[in-house]
């Protein structure tokens, strides 16, 4: 499959990455600013998220309402979000609208008004979201796993902490944006029906004279305890397990993600088969991979009735422990087949591709072609996966339960 991939870096440090998908009518664009939640100061967890919301509340000549109305008049399906590392503004639209939309995003990033009168609404919006999360047991369980497993500030909740958000004022937001929303380290990704040269020249015109600040270093702090229970008066108990695996930029991540996929990645995965299909213990059970640039973790999740939660946890732990030394060629074939179709199907979506090439640039500093990615899957072998598992078996697990009663971690897998 012929692919047309592009990248360019402006003098001020903005990287542009793009992919032409000529059969689509749409274009998807995302601006990823290195202003994520890792930069939340101690005691102000949620500042980045609040700042991201404030950027949309008036920018350049547009007031808050005009920003949204102008995006939507152009038919932009937009979103804004803050992750651990980035503050991102994304939009998908029919390609011909891109020229009128780029100046709006430029204002949002370069000229946010941050007016006093919008602050209370933005702050209340974030607090409402936090209250909603209180009612989402799955989200809370996985967030707690991240919090105890990852070193601070990487594990802190990107959405914030209620008491911290209540203490933030508009001055904090202005300082945060002045410091972190800047061109150095910013990635602008675009995919779909694009004219690359025209796009680069427009971005240069709109962003080229934006002066970079200095990169903000982040110091990693300590991690949390290995086992945590969150009391929640619910019928189901939710379980999350995590352990450290190589990050995406490490070549061994390929073997690691293959092993995790065998454990809990598809309908024929071991967790789905043993926990749900054989025993009927739960509705949802899965294993996945969460990566930062310098470290990554495996994450397993399930939710089940309180009285069956201990058995569910025990079966999950047993399957994790059983993984080294038992990988079969058939299982690896299935991982390969699923990954390959996933990669090809991504080419049908401008939004998926814009996301994928931005991620690759952030983690790898390059964009892999589809052929390179497929070739990596062809190279995967049982001995390679086994050798990685032998060297780095799942150990030092972090375990979170959320429900009425704590669970007993009877099969602690540790070094």
């Amino acid at each position, binding site marked *: 499959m012929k692919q047309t991939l592009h990248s360019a870096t402006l003098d001020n440090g903005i990287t542009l990455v793009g992919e032409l998908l000529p059969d689509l*009518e749409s274009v998807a664009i995302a601006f990823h600013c290195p202003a994520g939640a890792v930069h939340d100061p101690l005691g102000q967890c949620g500042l980045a998220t609040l700042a991201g919301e404030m950027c949309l509340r008036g920018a350049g000549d547009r007031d808050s309402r005009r920003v949204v109305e102008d995006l939507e*008049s152009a038919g932009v399906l937009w979103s804004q979000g803050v992750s651990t590392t980035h503050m991102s503004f994304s939009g998908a639209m029919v390609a011909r609208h891109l020229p009128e939309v780029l100046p709006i995003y430029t204002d949002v990033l370069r000229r946010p008004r941050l007016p006093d009168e919008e602050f209370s*609404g933005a702050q209340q919006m974030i607090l*409402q979201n936090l209250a*909603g999360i209180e009612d*989402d047991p799955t989200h809370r369980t996985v967030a707690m796993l991240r919090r105890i497993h990852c070193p601070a500030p990487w594990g802190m909740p990107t959405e914030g902490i209620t008491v911290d958000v209540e203490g933030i004022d508009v001055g904090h937001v202005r300082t945060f944006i002045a410091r972190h929303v800047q061109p150095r380290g910013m990635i602008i990704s675009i995919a779909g029906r694009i004219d690359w040269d025209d796009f680069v020249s427009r971005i240069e015109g709109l962003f080229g004279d934006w002066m970079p600040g200095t990169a903000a270093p982040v110091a990693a702090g300590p991690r949390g305890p290995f086992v945590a229970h969150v009391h929640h008066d619910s019928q189901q108990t939710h379980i999350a397990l995590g352990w450290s695996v190589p990050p995406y930029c490490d070549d061994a991540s390929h073997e690691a993600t293959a092993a995790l996929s065998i454990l809990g990645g598809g309908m024929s995965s071991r967790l789905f088969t043993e926990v749900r299909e054989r025993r009927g213990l739960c509705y949802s059970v899965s294993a996945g991979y969460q990566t930062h640039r310098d470290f990554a973790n495996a994450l397993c999740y399930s939710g089940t009735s309180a009285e069956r939660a201990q058995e569910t946890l025990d079966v999950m732990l047993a399957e994790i422990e059983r993984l080294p030394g038992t990988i079969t060629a058939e299982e690896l074939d299935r991982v390969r087949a699923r990954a390959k*179709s996933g990669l*090809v199907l991504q080419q049908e979506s401008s939004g998926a591709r814009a996301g994928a090439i931005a991620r690759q640039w952030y983690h790898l500093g390059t964009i892999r072609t589809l052929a390179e990615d497929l070739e990596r899957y062809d190279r995967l072998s049982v001995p390679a996966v086994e050798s990685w598992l032998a060297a780095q078996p799942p150990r030092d697990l972090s375990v979170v339960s959320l429900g009425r009663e704590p669970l007993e971690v009877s099969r602690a897998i540790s070094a």
Partner: protein
Amino acid sequence: MPFLHERLPNGLDVVAETSGSALSTSIGFFVKTGSRDESNELWGASHFLEHMIFKGTPEFSGDEINTRFDRMGASINAFTSEEDTVYYATVLPDQQHEAFDLLARMMRPALRDADFDTEKLVILEEIRMYDDQPPFGADDRCRAAFYGSHPLARSVLGTVDSIQSLTVAAMRDYHWRRYAPGTIVLAASGAVDFAALVESARRLCGEWAPAPAPSRLVPDPPRQPAVSTTERIVRPTAALDYAVRMVAGPGEHHSDRHAARLLSILLGDASGSRLYWALIDTGEAEQAACIHQDYLDAGLFVTQLSCDAADVDELLTRIVEIYGATAGGGIEQAEFERARNKLASRVVLSGEKPRRRLFDVGLEWSHLGCYRSVADNLRIVESLSLDDIRRVLSTWPLDGPAASVIAGSGSGG
């Protein structure tokens, strides 16, 4: 994108929207059955059966089905609603034959006793899972209150009691009655080899015995409430209150269904709508949405609100006032055009994903017996006028008698 249709002698419709540029092939069986087609004894059977379809055929176990699909690299799933049970798979084009072969065999499941007993536990977990989550059953309770004795009142999942008392014999009978060729549409989208699909369908589905098409409609049309009702569900630990409010709207046979969808975007889309500016932007509500849902013989405007318990009654009142003001005070042309642009953009963007088109093509054929291309849909959206919106507002008063259910800690008003 060419559309192709063929009907097998036993009544099974095969439809496809094919695309030369698609990289994937999507195939789905759209079964015309859902919770509205159940009796109280069979409450939850459609959804439970959807799970059982994956538990094996006479020749394959459930594990073998899962393993085969994963080996194809297939993305496979299913869903059940009030009116449909849909099984779908997306694969690379060279797997079309194999994916269809397995999916077709699954439509004639083994329904083994032991699998039924194990899967019953999974269904009960699914019921508990949703019961622990917002809106804590308020949506199902509101539909029940709104529809009263009409079959649309029944929830898709059933209840713990109805699932526990369901027998495998009753499910086998339900399957025999509801999965006949005349009540199933086989739809495909993307890079489809239609001739091969029809050939495979003849071989694998051609022997399915026709059965009389069951009537899906009851003599009495859905009851519309004459006066507003409000029920409360108490969940002491809930951080927010969750309100669901339903009033009547156009059903899927009504020409105003498209205008109704546009109106719901103008009133209650997740961004840039009237409810968004009034309640979300100000941080007064976590969610405030208006959604249009249509069924065979009925339609709904559903309002969803989540906010602090202390504010829920006042905000619901404000929402109804916003609906009233929209009907009474008029809508600016610019506001109307923004909503229409959003809808048009969604039609185009979702239209370029063959996996998404499968559902449009399959459900449209299954419900209305017709096909509409993305271009047709775009023409419909672009032809909508402010007068259409005004007509919907006056025909279906959103500020009229409604069924409302509020779930929350009970600490509010």
